């Protein structure tokens, strides 16, 4: 796991219940992917993104913030329920 990936997880864990890390490490140290948490259960999609951004803005440097790519925030049901 890359350094930024570790820091992102460390930052998120205290704020998100039952957090599951499905992030990917990209070339150049970037991070993107999926975060799963029951804390997102009652939130719409914009609110989830705002929540992630607020946590990142407080804990990451501007350079680290720009190296965090698109992260989808899913509920446990969204991450586990399959159509087939």
């Amino acid at each position, binding site marked *: 796991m890359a350094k930024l990936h570790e820091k992102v997880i460390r930052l998120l864990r205290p704020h998100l219940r039952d957090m599951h890390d499905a992030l990917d490490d990209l070339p150049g140290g970037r991070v993107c992917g999926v975060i799963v948490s029951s804390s997102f259960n009652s939130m719409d*999609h914009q609110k989830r*993104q705002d929540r992630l951004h607020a946590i990142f803005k407080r804990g990451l440097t501007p350079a680290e913030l720009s190296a965090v*790519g*698109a992260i989808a925030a*899913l509920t446990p049901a969204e991450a586990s329920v399959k*159509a*087939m």
Partner: protein
Amino acid sequence: MLDLSYRPNVLYLASIERMAAARRMIDDKPYDYVLASYLARLAVEAIFQALAREGGTAHDARHSLSKWLSKCPSPLHDALKGLAEWNLLVAVWDNGIRYLSFDGLVGYLRKNGYGYGKKGGVQSLVRQVTIDLVDAAETVHKKGLAIWLSSTRR
């Protein structure tokens, strides 16, 4: 046999056609919400694949949108960062949707937590979620098209 389907330009054009077809499935009767959901997401996957293939990534048969995004150029990551539409697309879409009947789609959406507390019958619930999904896919698709067009104009 020459396989054209993995060529970036073919994928780019296919993505535009799939998105237009998805829109027709919710705009014109008889509506087909399963097909609309499937086509909209396929359009996004196709433009992501075009971008990834243009960047030298080998073909990959998996259908995870976030995995395909990880193979795309960084301007696309920047364009999708913080976007509610990207979140919705990853949350709602599943590759198995294409095998579902209308009733199956209802069950799938309910298990995912969509539709509770909304007014109206099953038809209006599925219609609204599908419109939201297609709108979200179109927003993401347009971001992909913009990156494609800027990268191929060089």
